[in-house]
């Protein structure tokens, strides 16, 4: 599951920033990708769609790396498992 989540987060991020997914790793710092606040809003919106989760505002402020997002998503999915995680679609994918 960990790999699936990471791959999907990276794919979403790549789609939002219009960059190749292979340029992004778990250690990539969002600042290095030139992510600004508007990109963050869009990214969170797409992640919420992709994983069928709701990301609290307070969780957002501590995000620095791609891994922070992956860990956060996993935590939220564990707290409220989606109805059909395998079949969830990402409009950004």
């Amino acid at each position: 599951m960990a790999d699936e989540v990471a791959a999907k987060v990276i794919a979403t991020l790549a789609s939002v920033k219009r960059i190749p997914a292979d340029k992004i790793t778990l250690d990539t710092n969002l600042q290095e990708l030139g992510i600004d606040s508007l990109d963050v809003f869009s990214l969170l919106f797409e992640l919420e769609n992709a994983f069928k989760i709701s990301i609290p505002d307070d969780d957002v402020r501590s995000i620095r790396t791609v891994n922070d997002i992956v860990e956060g998503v996993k935590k939220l999915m564990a707290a409220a498992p989606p109805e059909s995680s395998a079949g969830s679609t990402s409009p950004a994918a």
Partner: protein
Amino acid sequence: MPPRRVAITGIGIISCLGLNLEENWNALREGRSGIAPLQGVDFHKLTLRFQNGAQVRNFDATKHFEPGKEDYIDRFAQFSVVAARDALRDSGLSLTPELRERSAIVCGSAVGGQSAIEVGFEDLYVTDRGRVHPLTIPKTMSNAGASHISMDLKLSGPTYTVSTACSSANHAMGQAFRLVRDGDADLAVTGGSEAMFTIGMLKAWEAMRVISPDTCRPFSKDRRGMILGEGGAMMILEPLDAARARGARIYGEICGFGMSSDANHLTQPIVEGPARAMRDALRMAGLAPEQIGYINAHGTGTPGNDPVETRAIRAVFGTHADKLAISSTKSMHGHALGAAGAIEAVATILALRDGILPPTANFTVADPECDLDYIPNKARTQQVEAALSNSFAFGGLNAVLAFRSYHG
């Protein structure tokens, strides 16, 4: 013609703090917040990360408009008209045909008749009625507030609406001030109004991630965002000499207006833009920084705004910044977007008139990044000579008004 001094001689205000001037001023000086659980939102059907707002309560449109006519006017424009009527009545002016033609109306609104268009589109997309109400367009248009004031009060001079998001009302009042100052109008009705508590707007603001899940705590370390508000405030501006000549009660003077654009980012503020707007307002007013005693801050309570505004104030005022009394009254009336500047102008003018500086309510813990005097929680009795009122909008558009106290 040399620039004329401009007096404020009438005020009308509707906000979550009350439906008239007295109720609003009582709440502001008592540090009483009107932020409360949202009404009219079905939380069983709608998930929302915040549940509080600064809604106007007990406003009965049928008391203010002919039977049935209230349906032709969106709530935001209803606020405009009722506040304008109250302001004109408060001013004691009697209008001659000549003065009606020389009267300007300049209103601010960020989103206009949002509920009208949302109901219309629900009919179209959700209930499949295949048509929308014929008055959807004239109810939705942002200038509806200004137009209804014009028709209602029979004022026929320059009339328009300014829409610059959260700075709308300050931009509007600044334009009206200049029309009267420069002799292009002999009377102005000006302010702002907003009514945006619709499901679509709430969800759109939620997605922006700037709304606090509890309350609005401007400049506090534990602030978590803004609280949406609604309402309307209008004031009457006239040349000071004319106001004196008719023996009008004068609340104070509006004396400076500064505008700037950050030219930087849609939602992230920077220090330079707001600082330039404050400097320009001071310059137009002919005021030295040391003459300012109070600033009604933009103070949204978001993590982003408050430290940047603090730094901008320090950049403009230097060492005098530590002597300034500053408050964000959004802690009490919420952020009414296009009406915010007008509601805050009323707070600023009454602070100058009465020598009572309204506090920043809900203040808890000091933030090292916000290191000025924010009048925490309790109003302060202090007579000040002049004040600024800041508004900084999404889109990086800044508008600052300067006011001076007037004591006969």
